[in-house]
C-alpha cells in the first residue's frame, strides 16, 4: 500500500440553504487515480474546491504531505503542488501555449519569450504532447487545451492534479489519449483526482473510486471490488433496474423523412427517415456535424434538401420550423435553452406565449397555472415557480427546457445531447420521456455523443463522420465497436 499524500478529515461545509458536505473523510494515495463520482449536487465540486483552496471548510482538517494545511486561495494550493484542471480551462485564448504556461510564474519583471518557448517546447516534447509552444491557445481544440493545462500543472511541480469532468467536452478518441496521459502521470509520481459522470471510463483508469451522495461519503472502493450495478446503487441510493427502459414499438409507417440534407458547407447529403414509435439516433464524435443536422432542420443554420416530408406534408427550408411542429431540445441548455436570469415560469412561457396571451397582453394568472402543471408533470424540484433557473441544478434546468419545448406536443422532436452533465436519476427520467414521446407517435431524433445511451435507447442509428453520413445501423447491427469504427471513419 502506497503512502497517503492527502488526507481530508471530517470536513463539513454549509452554503445558505444547503449542507454541501457532511463530515467527509477521504485519503488520496501517492501515484493513484482516485475517481470521485456522484450525482449533480452530491458535493463533488465543493470537495475539490475545498481541497484546492477556493472554499474554506466550516469544520474539519486537511493534511497534505503529512502536514496540516489551510490554503487561503487557489494560488497557494497550486504553489504547494495541488493543481486543478477546471472544465472551463482557465487559459488565455489570445496568448501562446508558452505564455500561458508562464503566466503567473514569471520571476521579476523581465520575461523572455524565447526562453519561455524553449522551456515549454522541451516540456511538451518530454510529455510527448503534440502541441507547438508558439501556437495561440485559441487555435487549439478542447482536448489540446486540456493538455496545455496538464503541462502547466506539471511545470509547477504538481503532486496532485484534480480533473473536473475532463471527458465531458472531448471526443472518445481524445479521451482514450487522455487516459494514456493520466496513466503516464501516475508513473511520474503524480496522484490524480478524476471526476466523471461516465462509469465506463472510471473502470478504465481509476484505482479507487469514492462515491458521494447528498454531501456524504457513501464509500471508497477498489475498482476491482465494485461492479457497475453496485456503483450506481451507491450513487443514487436505490437500485436502477434498468437504465434504458424500452417500451416503444417501432412501426412501418414513416413520420419524417429528409433527402440530401446539407447544412452550411460542412454537412453534406445526409438522408434518413424516422418511423412511427421509433427512437432514431444520430451518433458521431464531437464536431462530426450531428448537432448541425438538428440546427439545420430547425432552420437556425442555413440548410437545404432535395425533399423533406413531415406527416405527409412536404416542407421547404424556413426560419420558423417551430410553426410546422418541429421542436428542438438544444445542445447547451445554458447557452441555447434557458434565460438564466429569468424564473422558471417565464422560461416555460417563453416558447408558449400563445397559450397565455391575447394580442400582446400576457395573463400571468394563466402562466402560473401552466408553469405549475409543467413543474408537477416533470417533477422539477423548485422552491417556487418563480425561482430563477440559474439557481437550479443541471438536471432540473434540463427538465425546464423539456417542459418548455414539449408543452405543445410536437410532430417531430430533436434532442441534442439531452443528458449531458446531469445525474443518473434524471437521465433515466429523460429516457422515459423520450420513450413516451415515441409511443405517442411523435417522431424522435436522439442525438448524442454517449454511446451507452445511443445503444440502450435507439432503434436505428445514423453515424456521422466529418459532416457525412457513414450509414444507418439497425438495432440488431448496433454495437459499440461498429459505431466507433464508423464514427472515426474506419469503414471496412
Amino acid at each position, binding site marked *: 500500500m502506497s503512502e497517503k499524500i492527502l488526507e481530508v478529515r471530517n470536513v463539513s461545509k454549509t452554503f445558505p440553504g444547503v449542507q454541501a458536505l457532511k463530515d467527509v473523510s477521504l485519503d488520496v494515495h501517492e501515484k493513484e487515480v482516485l475517481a470521485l463520482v456522484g450525482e449533480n449536487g452530491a458535493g463533488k465540486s465543493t470537495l475539490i474546491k475545498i481541497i484546492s483552496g477556493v472554499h474554506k471548510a466550516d469544520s474539519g482538517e486537511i493534511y497534505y504531505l503529512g502536514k496540516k494545511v489551510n490554503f487561503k486561495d487557489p494560488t497557494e494550493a497550486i504553489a504547494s503542488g495541488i493543481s486543478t484542471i477546471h472544465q472551463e480551462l482557465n487559459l488565455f485564448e489570445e496568448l501562446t501555449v508558452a505564455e500561458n504556461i508562464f503566466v503567473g510564474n514569471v520571476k521579476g519583471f523581465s520575461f523572455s519569450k524565447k526562453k519561455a518557448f524553449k522551456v515549454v517546447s522541451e516540456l511538451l516534447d518530454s510529455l510527448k504532447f503534440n502541441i507547438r509552444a508558439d501556437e495561440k491557445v485559441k487555435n487549439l481544440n478542447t482536448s489540446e487545451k486540456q493538455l496545455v493545462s496538464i503541462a502547466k500543472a506539471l511545470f509547477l511541480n504538481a503532486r496532485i492534479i484534480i480533473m473536473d469532468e475532463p471527458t465531458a467536452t472531448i471526443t472518445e478518441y481524445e479521451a482514450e489519449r487522455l487516459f494514456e496521459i493520466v496513466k503516464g502521470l501516475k508513473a511520474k509520481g503524480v496522484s490524480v483526482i478524476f471526476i466523471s459522470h461516465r462509469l465506463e471510463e472510471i473502470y478504465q483508469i481509476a484505482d479507487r473510486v469514492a462515491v458521494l451522495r447528498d454531501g456524504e461519503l457513501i464509500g471508497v472502493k477498489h475498482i476491482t471490488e465494485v461492479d457497475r450495478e453496485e456503483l450506481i446503487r451507491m450513487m443514487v441510493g436505490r437500485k436502477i433496474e434498468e437504465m434504458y427502459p424500452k417500451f416503444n414499438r417501432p412501426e412501418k409507417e414513416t413520420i419524417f423523412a429528409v433527402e440530401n440534407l446539407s447544412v452550411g458547407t460542412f454537412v453534406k447529403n445526409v438522408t434518413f427517415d424516422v418511423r412511427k414509435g421509433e427512437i432514431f439516433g444520430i451518433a458521431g464524435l464531437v464536431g462530426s456535424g450531428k448537432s448541425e443536422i438538428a440546427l439545420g432542420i*430547425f432552420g*437556425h443554420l442555413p440548410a437545404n434538401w432535395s425533399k423533406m416530408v413531415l406527416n405527409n406534408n412536404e416542407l421547404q427550408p424556413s426560419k*420558423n420550423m*417551430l*410553426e410546422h411542429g418541429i421542436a*428542438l431540445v*438544444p445542445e447547451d441548455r445554458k*447557452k*441555447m*435553452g*434557458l*434565460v*438564466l*436570469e*429569468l424564473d422558471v415560469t*417565464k422560461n416555460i*412561457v*417563453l*416558447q408558449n*406565449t400563445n397559450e397565455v*396571451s391575447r394580442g*400582446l*397582453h*400576457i395573463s*400571468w394568472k394563466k402562466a402560473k397555472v401552466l408553469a405549475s402543471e409543467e413543474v408537477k408533470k416533470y417533477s422539477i424540484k423548485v422552491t417556487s415557480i418563480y425561482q430563477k433557473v440559474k439557481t437550479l441544478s443541471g438536471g432540473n434546468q434540463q427538465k425546464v427546457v423539456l417542459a*418548455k419545448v414539449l408543452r405543445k406536443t410536437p410532430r417531430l422532436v430533436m434532442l441534442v445531447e439531452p443528458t449531458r452533465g446531469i445525474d443518473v436519476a434524471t437521465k433515466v427520467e429523460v429516457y422515459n420521456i423520450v420513450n413516451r414521446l415515441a409511443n405517442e407517435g411523435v417522431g424522435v431524433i436522439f442525438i448524442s455523443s454517449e454511446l451507452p445511451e445511443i445503444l440502450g435507447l435507439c432503434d436505428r442509428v445514423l453515424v456521422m463522420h466529418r459532416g457525412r453520413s457513414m450509414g444507418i445501423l439497425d438495432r440488431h447491427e448496433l454495437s459499440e465497436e461498429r459505431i466507433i469504427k464508423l464514427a472515426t471513419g474506419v469503414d471496412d
Partner: protein
Amino acid sequence: MSWRKITAKLREYPAVVGLVGVVVLFSLLSDRFFTLSNFVNVLRQVSMQAIIAFGMTVVIISGGIDLSVGSVFALSAAILASTIAKGGSILLGILAALLVGAGFGFFNGFVIAKGRLQPFIVTLATMAIARSLTLAYMEGMPITGFPSSFRFIGAGDILGIPVPVIIMFSLLLLMFYLTRYTKFGLYAYSIGGNELASKLSGVKVDLYKISFYILSGVLTAVSAVILTSRLNSAQPTFGVGYELDAIAAVVLGGASLSGGKGSVLGTFFGALIMGILNNGMNILNVSPFYQDAVKGIVILTAVLVEREG
C-alpha cells in the same frame, strides 16, 4: 405588508433608498427644499429626462443601448418647430416629430438586428448623423414663432399639475404595463438575458429588437415636443449629453448594461435622484463646476452598492 416583504421590495428597487437619502439630506441642509412647490418643480424638470430614459430602459434591458437619443431629440425638435413655424398645425408638427423619432429608431433597430452590428457603434453613428442633419437643417439658428396655444404642452398645467408631469406619469403607467404584462416586455428581458435561447424558442428577435429602438425614438420625440413648447423655440444644441443622463437614470434604477435586468419604475426613481441632485445643489448654491462630479460619485456609489446586493 410585512417587514420582510418591504425589504424584499427595496432590494428590487435600490434606487428608492438613494432617493430617500438625497431627499432627507437636502431637507436637512435647506428649508427651501422640502416644499410642495419645489417638488412639483423637480417633477417638471425631471419629466423630459425621464421620458427619454423610459425608452432607454427597454433598449438596455434587451441588451442594447441607444446613444442617438440626444441628437434625435434635437432633430425632432427642429422638424416640429419648422413645421409649426411654417404654418402647419400643432398636431401636424407633433406627428412629424414623432415620425422623425420613429424613423431613426427603426433605422437603428434595423441595422442592429439585420446587420448584426453592435448597438453602441450603430447608435454612435446615428448620433453623429442626426446632429449633423439638425445643424444643417437649422443652419445653426434657433427656430421660433409658434402660436401661443402651443405653449400649453410644456408650460401649461391641469388643476395645478404641470402638463409635462401628467405626460410623464401617463407614459410611466403605459411603460410599466408594457414591460410587465406583455410579450413585448417578456421578450425584452429574454432577448437581453439570452438572445440565442429566445430565438430558438421561436421569439421573433429581429422584429422585437427593431420595435425597442422605435419606442426609444418615439419617446425621445415626445420629450423634444415638451421642451420645444416649454422654451417656445427649438435650438440646434438641444439634447446634447441627454443620452448619458438617460443611461445614468437607467443604471441608477438597477439595470445592467449587459442586459436582461432593469425596470421602468427603477428608472423613474433613478431619474428623480438625478433631478433632485440638480435641484438641491442649485438651492444650496453649489458651484456648477462641482455638480457633475457629485452626480458622478452618486452613480458610482449606487452601482457599487447594487453589485453587493
